[in-house]
């Protein structure tokens, strides 16, 4: 029997992981009998064992349960982040690319302004403005992503608008809006979806970073970034408190990146 190539294995594993995560978001209780927020204080800082697969934290809460329930919080939040960036960014980018001229110049300038402000500083400021919490952190991360989306969409719209079939559609009597809606935007979709999935993984990392810096959900909410942040104080005595949430972030980011590659480049042309 021939062993399938590495890329196939990794892709299958990515989808499998994503499916598992979706199930965790849908019904976390299916995966663990422990509570994510209430622990038995006497059982604190226990190393991984049969009873607690990933060990327990400083208050005796099950780390595995916290990761499961954390998925329930982090993954939808990342979705909100990407949706924010996608909707605003794609809107601005499409407008700039399609309208051209002065509108394009102004919007491009605006995007340059957004890009010139460090993304994390921007996110932190917005979290302070909106108030702390996972959802607000997600929106802040999403706002930080607007410029990136807008640039890509603008480029795509400009490129596709210059294509012959768009000119042909105009020649067939289509209006400006009609061409944009029926031809330009649908043809941007593939790269846009691919970019969104890629951005999803960065959003997870960014939201976790905000959580790490203390701008995420209030305690005792199980948030991956927050778990790593809290766990790092116990690194010398309880390695499991950082290692497992860290691996969770890494694996999800890796899986979504892998999947986004298939969307952008379905034939695997890049080998």
């Amino acid at each position, binding site marked *: 029997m021939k062993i399938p190539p590495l890329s196939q294995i990794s892709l299958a594993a990515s989808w499998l992981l994503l499916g598992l995560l979706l199930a965790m978001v849908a019904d976390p209780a299916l995966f663990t009998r422990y509570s994510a927020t209430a622990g038995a204080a006497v059982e604190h800082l226990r190393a991984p064992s049969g009873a607690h697969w990933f060990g327990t934290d400083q208050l005796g809460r099950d780390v595995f349960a916290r990761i499961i329930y954390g998925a329930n919080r982090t993954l939808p939040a990342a979705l909100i982040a990407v949706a924010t960036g996608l909707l605003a960014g794609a809107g601005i980018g499409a407008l700039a690319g399609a309208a051209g001229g002065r509108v394009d110049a102004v919007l491009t300038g605006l995007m340059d302004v957004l890009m010139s402000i460090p993304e994390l500083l921007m996110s932190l400021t917005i979290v302070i403005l909106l108030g702390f919490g996972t959802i607000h952190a997600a929106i802040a991360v999403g706002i930080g992503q607007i410029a990136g989306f807008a640039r890509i969409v603008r480029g795509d719209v400009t490129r596709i608008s210059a*294509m*012959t*079939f*768009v*000119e*042909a*559609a*105009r*020649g*067939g*009597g*289509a*209006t400006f809006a*009609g061409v944009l809606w*029926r*031809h330009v935007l*649908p*043809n941007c979709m593939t790269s846009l979806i691919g970019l969104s999935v890629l951005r999803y993984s960065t959003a997870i990392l960014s939201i976790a970073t905000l959580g790490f810096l203390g701008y995420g959900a209030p305690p005792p909410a199980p948030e991956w970034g927050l778990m790593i942040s809290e766990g790092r104080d116990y690194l010398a005595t309880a390695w499991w408190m950082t290692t497992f949430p860290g691996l969770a972030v890494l694996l999800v980011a890796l899986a979504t990146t892998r999947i986004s590659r298939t969307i952008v480049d379905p034939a695997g042309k890049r*080998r």
Partner: protein
Amino acid sequence: MSPSNFRLRPDAPAAPAMGPVLDVKDLRISYSARTVVHGVSFQAARGETTAVIGESGSGKSTIARAIIGLLPQGAHLESGTITLAGDTLTRRPSHEFDGIRGRRIGFVPQDPSNSLDPVATIGAHVGEMFRLHTTLSRAETRERVLALLDRVGLSDPVLRFSQYPHELSGGMRQRVLIAGAIALNPDLIVADEPTSALDVTVQRQILDLLDGLRAEHGTSILLITHDLAIAKDRARDTIVLRSGRIEEQDDTAKIFAAPRADYTKRLIADLPVFAPRPPPADIPAADAADAVVVSNLRVAYPTGRHQTRLAVDSVSFRVRAGTTHAIVGESGSGKTTILRCLTGLIMPDAGTILIEGEDIAHARGPARRAMLRHIQLVYQNPWASLDPRQSVRQIIEEPLRNFAIDSPAGRRARVEAMLDRVHLPRTLLDRRPAEMSGGQCQRVALARALVIEPRILVLDEVVSALDVTVQARVLDLLAELRRDLGLTYIFVSHDLAVVRQIADTLSVIRHGRQVERGPADTLFDAPAEPYTKLLLAAIPGQGNAAPVQLQET
């Protein structure tokens, strides 16, 4: 310095004086599970040109890549041997082949525009041959390179040496590539469609150059081409490929005189230059109304802050309803600009374009859009002009929706009728462009243009991207449509052989100026202008007439 001075091949094995320079035996190549070359065997005679002809998908390029040992990713040599002057090339380790490529096999690629490294100078490009295979000093290399540039007919080699590819025209770039290919005097030059991306006059010159080099150095040439006419003019032997199999291989003259394979017969019959000009079908009365009147059209492009260049200068012609007017010119002549003006995509700086009496050149907004119902444009590249995400049905229906013609049910009927009209099966209705052949796509594009019943079609090189047999069928369809629907065509092309098949009147354009215009018969039979004569002489397939003056192009 004479070219013979760099016949240096100190390490070259003494090639057997007799026998073929290239011997391909039972070559079988596959892409994963799909075999694309099925046991092909042929030979190329020393010092001669051997043509391999075939349409797209015939496997001719794959064979060329196999000979130079650079099969594309995924391609797999299943069996067979390739022998070059007695040395077996197949199954050699990669690093060994590196010493053979360039030194013993030269390669001339298809598309000169992308075949030169854009950030390297011309001198670096040709000089790379010496850098890779000899120990010549920089100064010696430079001398050799300058001599080579001179040999391939480039003016001012010293200037060219330090120029970059984008500063050269397509023809000049192809000369540079040829200079590289012959630099080390190889046994064989593999030329993969060396002229298909070039203008007809340039094509002629490049082929003359290759012929000259062959005659001078005794280099053998394997000419891979889709163009039978070129094979007829240039090759001693011809191999006809189809779907990875050899249909026929023989002396070129014999093949053209008495083709044996049906496929070869059809190919030859479909070649415009050999096809008889169809009798002009019921030419409309001389007093028929003018469908299009272009007068004193002028378009300028800005080239700098305050400079402009005239892309089109004082072009005038009129097209009677129901006839075909051809605009002929080489690349950069401004013919595309003219047709973009005709469909209102560009506003001219001066002049008028009357479409059935209305001036489209200065129409705007709704007025222009309304005129689009009468004049439609069909593009050169059938795949590029169709939205890859739309189905055939959506593509053809879209103009109807744009102009709010008919009910949804009525539109569906019109789309289906239109599909019949262009001889496409209705099973294609739900296909997407990527799932169809070029000919099918071009028919869909025609259907889309015709579905809103325009009276004038502007056809921009509509058959240039198609294989010969497909080209012939589309031309037949165009003639049929014109006859049945009473259409007026404006047919833009660089290919005079095709134009001869379809045009009633024509304009010859060069550098934005109208060189000559008049009835097709007059221009083809008795051209007045030297440029028109040059164009006519350059049509391949007329036998190797007197060489066209070798000028830098």
